[in-house]
């Protein structure tokens, strides 16, 4: 959820205030919360795990890194690595690519591994297979051109084209 106050940063503080018996829920990002001078009762609620995780993240980065101006930012969702290390959560799937280098050591620390070995969605399975086939055909094509078997090469080129079309669908 985005902070409703600034609409920019993720709302990481969630709490309920009771004023004159009326219950109101608040969601704020840290910056806005600080600006509003909000004291947060129940701040710990539900955050221990992510704080633990961010402890891990801070431990991970060397002091030099911590003082470096923060430029690593996900182009898709706008989340910076700094924000991630505070809230322990990513903003979108592309964050995994953006932060890959720093992420792998963290994943190994948390899971003992950094590569998936479980279930694969059927759709991705099909795609992976097509990609593999495509690579193979391309290699064959190069070989046929090398040996000047142009008729075969033309046939392969058509096959590659149709596979590429399938993948783009």
């Amino acid at each position, binding site marked *: 959820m985005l902070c409703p106050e600034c609409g920019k940063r993720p709302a990481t503080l969630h709490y309920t205030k009771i004023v004159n018996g009326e219950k109101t829920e608040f969601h704020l990002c840290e910056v806005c919360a600080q600006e509003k001078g909000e004291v947060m009762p129940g701040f710990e609620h539900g955050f221990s795990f992510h704080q633990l995780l961010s402890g891990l993240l801070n431990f991970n980065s060397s002091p030099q890194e911590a003082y470096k101006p923060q430029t690593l930012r996900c182009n898709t969702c706008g989340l910076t690595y700094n924000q991630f290390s505070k809230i322990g*959560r990513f903003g979108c799937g592309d964050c995994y690519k953006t932060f890959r280098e720093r992420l792998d050591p963290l994943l190994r620390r948390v899971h003992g591994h950094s590569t998936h070995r*479980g279930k694969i969605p059927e759709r*991705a399975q099909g795609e992976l297979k097509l990609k593999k086939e495509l690579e193979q055909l391309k290699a064959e094509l190069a070989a046929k051109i090398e040996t000047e078997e142009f008729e075969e090469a033309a046939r392969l080129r058509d096959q590659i084209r149709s596979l590429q079309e399938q993948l783009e669908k």
Partner: protein
Amino acid sequence: MSLEHFIQNAISEWMRVKGPQSDIVFSSRVRIARNLDGLPFPLLSTQSQAEEVVRRVEEAWKNDKDRLAVLKDAELIRMSDLTDLEKRVLVEKHLISPMLAEESRHGAVLLSQDESVSIMINEEDHIRIQVLFPGLQLEKAWELASQIDNWLEKHLTYAFEGGYGYLTSCPTNVGTGIRASVMVHLPALAMTQQLNRLIPAITQVGLAVRGIYGEGSEALGQLYQVSNQVTLGQSEEEILDNLQGVVRQMIEHEQIARRRLQEMSLTQLEDRVHRSYGILAHARIIDSNEAMKRLSDVRLGVDMGLILGVSANVMNELMVMTQPGFLQSYANQRLNPEQRDIRRARLIRERLAMEQTKEQ
């Protein structure tokens, strides 16, 4: 509304039906996290993006619900349509997470008729498929969760990457996105002070143990949740095998401890469980800490054949029904803590009395 009628509406099947190993394992749960490709995670989604996720899941379900029997008569419930109390009851029944109830803005849940399946939408991840079964049935729960996953995937494109697997908002869930957990009742291990040795050993094999009720280290009612921590680098089957193996060992240790108690201090044990029964059957004011403790004792007494004429699942029911949300929903009004303690005692008395009339 009569208590009998209320229970019929309020109790999920996992609390009513006896599952395998149910003298120690109350329930098994498998939850898998999934996100949709091309949309930011709920943490950063705008109102319309969050609404889009709900819409896509709803559409998939409406157009194709006949293919999965369990979801045929399911109901899509938006958090915005529920009162705080209604949400709280769903949390107490373990059907939705506190996060979905409290924090999500476009949160929704697709809940199966028998309440064994709940698909949470816009929780920490776009989709969380949860299957909850009575007793020790991890494999069956995973099978169903995976079926639902396959069915959803026919209609939606997941955020998936060859190397990292299923992408999740929190990197502690990435890969398989699976969190399997088992709710175990370990009163004999607690009484014989063996838990302090057992719990650290379990955390060393990549599992987490925490009390289900109560805060900090003290688990009210001696109910613990054991779950996997690792989601990446192992297959779902390996993760489940590991958990199942440890749970089987816990069951064995608990059984040995129960036998030993029976052999070495039967009278003390009988006194304890019957004393607790007496308090539950007659108290006029009882707070939730004491209620949980007494219910745990009576459940142990029932499971060991020391208390007759009460069915074991009554304790499961009461552990859930004496939570604040349930009490208030049965009373049909908001209650302060003192009022709750009185209502709690009355509800327990009435429920135990129902058992006695059944006996005659």
